[in-house]
């Protein structure tokens, strides 16, 4: 026994929108989420249906969008959702699911504003892992003229050495000289082994 409680998912109160380009794939995805205990599932076969759901006032906890919609309309849909300033759904986690991806779509998938792209086939194991990952997502949201969505940088290493960052919170990766005395060993120990204060 490790003493650490295993993380569990309680999706019974979550509301999920599923957009798939054909009924069979939509049914598979729907069954996976039913199995995960989701009670409020909106299943959509067209972009129009999905947009109506988004604009209906329902707050979604997760959107799962097919990359393989005709004309790659799924990417445009995600971009429009991210730009809906009057809807809280623009901040919802969005997962793209993709079958075969033509080279021209790879950059669109990255730049449309989704949190994650998952390769088909969608099995329960794949979906559970990705939902858990999305639930722990802590990236900031970025809105610029050319992009709206979660920060595409999964890790921040700072701007390249010798260049000034473009963002107000960018820190240089280069370490400067110490500005004060080194910490003593007891100070360091105290940080790793905190004790209750006796009052």
């Amino acid at each position: 026994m490790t003493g650490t409680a295993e993380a569990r998912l309680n999706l019974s109160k979550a509301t999920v929108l599923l957009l798939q380009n054909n009924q069979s794939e939509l049914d598979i995805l729907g069954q996976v989420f039913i199995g995960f205990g989701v009670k409020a599932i909106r299943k959509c076969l067209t972009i129009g249906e999905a947009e109506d759901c988004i604009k209906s006032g329902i707050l979604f906890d997760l959107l799962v969008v097919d990359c393989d919609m005709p004309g790659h309309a799924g990417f445009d849909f995600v971009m429009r959702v991210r730009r809906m300033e009057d809807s809280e759904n623009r901040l919802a986690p969005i997962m793209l699911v993709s079958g075969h991806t033509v080279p021209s779509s790879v950059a669109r998938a990255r730049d449309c504003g989704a949190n994650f792209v998952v390769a088909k086939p969608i099995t329960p194991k794949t979906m559970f892992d990705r939902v858990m990952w999305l639930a722990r997502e802590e990236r900031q949201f970025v809105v610029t003229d050319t992009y709206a969505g979660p920060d595409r940088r999964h890790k921040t290493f700072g701007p390249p050495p010798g260049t000034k960052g473009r963002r107000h919170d960018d820190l240089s990766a280069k370490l400067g000289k110490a500005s004060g005395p080194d910490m003593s060993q007891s100070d360091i120990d105290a940080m790793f082994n905190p004790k209750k204060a006796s009052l």
Partner: protein
Amino acid sequence: MKPPTFKYENRLAKSVVTRGGMSASEALKAATRAVEEIRDPTIAAIDANLAEIYALGEELKAGGVFEETALQKMYICSNRVVAMGGVFGLGELGQAAYSLCELISRFQTLERFQWSMIQVHIDGLRLLRTPGDHPAEIREQVLAGLRQVATSVN
């Protein structure tokens, strides 16, 4: 001016709990059971898409030229097999379908077409639809061959 970057509430975060809800193994078991309920109609949908691929293959063979509409239809059907095959133990069929998608995508880029390359993929799909009838070694060789064919188109 509004900053371009801001923190926001991840609505899904509240679903991660330490008590109640489902563990990974419980969720997987329940989801697998739920998916199993639609096995028959999904297998039927896979077969319908395969039948359409085979029919389009005949059309392309008869025409003998690059035919964008038929190829695009074949790509869509094949991509559906990619999506559904692996869910019900037909993962290798899905991989063969993925290779056919890759081949068609390359044909579309180059606007050229070679029937024999489609034919070999159709033969592969037929064989991998019944994986139990063929030894694993043969199936692996078929898949390796299909990938080689698809990636040879440049």
